[in-house]
């Protein structure tokens, strides 16, 4: 950080190079993350507000913020918020992730997919 007090995500006016204007497609998992956030934040549920979502992303720290892609940052923040609110806990999340990883290693398709 070269300027005192500027948080990494707050990069308005910083040197950033040319804007990439070409359209790009989104893989399915990104669409799912987007849909998940819409469902968590809609008026029926209101489980995560947009401000809580932003706060989670801003809390990632410079290295993670830079390394992760846009929807990976969303995933990290959604996860953090759901744990904080007691909707999921770390243990069950960790077990589910291990289960998914084992399933993928065994050559299975993604769980819950019917293709």
């Amino acid at each position, binding site marked *: 950080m070269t*300027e*005192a*007090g*500027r*948080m990494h995500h*707050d990069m*308005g*006016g910083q040197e950033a190079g040319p804007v990439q204007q070409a359209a790009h497609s989104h893989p399915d998992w990104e669409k799912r993350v987007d849909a998940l956030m819409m469902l968590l934040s809609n008026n029926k549920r209101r489980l995560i*507000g947009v*401000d*809580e979502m*932003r*706060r989670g992303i*801003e809390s990632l720290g410079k290295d993670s913020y830079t390394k992760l892609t846009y929807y990976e940052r969303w995933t990290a923040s959604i996860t953090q918020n759901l744990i*904080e*609110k007691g909707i999921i806990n770390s243990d069950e999340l960790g077990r589910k992730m291990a289960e998914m990883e084992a399933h993928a290693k065994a050559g299975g398709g993604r769980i819950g997919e019917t293709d």
Partner: protein
Amino acid sequence: MARFTSGDSVTVRRAFPPGHVRTPYYIRGKSGHVERVLDSFANPEELAYGRDGLPKRPLYRVRFAQSRVWPDYSGAPGDTLDVELYEHWLEPAGEESA
């Protein structure tokens, strides 16, 4: 009620609190004028931590001369920039510290 009204000259506080804030770094310490008073909203800097954000805070659309925001601005001299800012980030112009 809203402390400022349309046309008032205001300066953005030069403050650097930790946590979730809604005032971009680049506009802190800059002066402009209130283009319009928008409405009052629950404070997002509180909502970000799961609180209710009340009382609601007035939000303003503040207009800045681009040449006063960016020292090396090379666009047209009349160019302006609008930023929406909450009242607790604004002071009457003239109290600018930098």
